[in-house]
């Protein structure tokens, strides 16, 4: 049993986009704040902080999760992936990201990080998504400016590209 007291900060170590990281966290620190303020990884956005908007969605051990409904201490030992880890290199977009760009699937971009992270996980689980399935996955996110149609269109095209060329960078997970 480990007992982390409220008043002190505790070391939390995990893997972020393939690199080992650590920070000092009070038990009440949210994973979203740990990433943004503790580690400076501000790609993960924060909208509602109660699980509704999806802006903060990250992958924990390959599955999507709300960072605002996760405590930093719960990341201990996990593999975390955020929007910063989607592209194959800092100056290259993933297939899904490039498709979002082509289809104008983002406008202000506030919701985009979370949507990309969710869809990236979903496409690994379901390489042949139907439009209906994608609408349900994207239903876990709120976008207040683009409209969802281009987001779905971009994802369908990215899925097709990924299926036709398995060597594309999105098909390997960090």
């Amino acid at each position, binding site marked *: *049993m*480990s*007992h*982390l*007291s*409220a*008043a002190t900060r505790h070391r939390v170590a995990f893997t972020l986009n393939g690199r080992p990281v650590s920070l000092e966290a*009070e*038990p*009440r620190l*949210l994973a979203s*704040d740990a990433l943004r303020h503790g580690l400076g990884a501000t790609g993960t956005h924060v909208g*509602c*902080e*109660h*699980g509704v908007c*999806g802006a903060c*969605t990250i992958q*924990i051990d390959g*599955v*999507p*999760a*709300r960072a*605002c*409904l*996760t*405590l930093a*201490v*719960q990341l201990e030992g996990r593999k975390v992936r955020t929007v910063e880890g989607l592209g194959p290199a800092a100056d290259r977009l993933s297939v899904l990201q490039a498709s979002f760009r082509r289809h104008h699937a983002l406008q202000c971009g506030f919701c985009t990080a979370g949507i990309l992270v*969710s869809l990236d996980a*979903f496409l690994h689980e379901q390489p042949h998504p139907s439009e209906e399935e994608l609408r*349900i*996955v994207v*239903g*876990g*996110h709120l976008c207040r400016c683009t409209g969802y149609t281009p987001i779905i269109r971009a994802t369908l095209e990215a899925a097709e590209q990924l299926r036709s060329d398995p060597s594309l960078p999105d098909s390997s997970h960090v």
Partner: protein
Amino acid sequence: MKPAAFDFIRAGNLSEALDALGQYGSDARIIAGGQSLMPMLNMRLAKPAVLIDVMGIPGLDAVRREGDTIVISAGVRQAALMQRPNLASELPLLAAALPWLGHYQTRTRGTVCGSAAHADPSAEIPLCLVALDGEVRLRSRKRSRRVKAGDFFVGMMVTDKADDELIEAVTFPVSKPGSGHAFKEVARRHGDFAIVGCAALVTPDAIHLAVAGVADKPQRRSFPLLDGSALSDALNAFAWDLDARDDYHATARLRRDLVRSLGRDTIKEALSCRT
């Protein structure tokens, strides 16, 4: 929108979790997937002094069959239950309801037992437990006990669980041949809390309909195999007995109307898919 301060205890086994609960009682809350508790903490609707994390307890992620009962332990995530190979034949009601429980992005972490513990009156797991007459297995340092779902849910976010108890598992009876199940809900957005949710179980001699989102807890009513205007009358009486209230999401009148229409559709579907 940040939680108040709390101590965080990682329980390495069940007995450590029970000791901590015994020690801190009403100052402590169990955290499993956190998908119901974390919003409460962030909004400071809950301010426990201690969180006890049970997800590191070995064996707590098991779903097993005990005779004609499916036992779902405290650490089983909703997404994991959805992936159970025989779910649609063993628990067709759960197979139909789980896709409506939260979002793809929250079922990955939220647990089945956590949803029961939270006892939101519009939630799917409490509704299914009541519809199928399932049980909640509670455990404390001093005792273990089993409570029928109908007695476990006491009111809005209030259950029969004592402060030193945790939900060890929830159990559902396996679907019997000749029965039919259906689930339907109306919400503002797929994955949001239901305005009204209906779960129907039809057996060779009865219709059981459970309704969420109207009363302060899920409620079940059983009828003989009625149809036509007799069924409409029975549904109308049930709708009025649920004592619907107006709130931000819907009026009482809309809720009663949904109990009548959605209730009927759900029963119809359950009748049509009898095995």
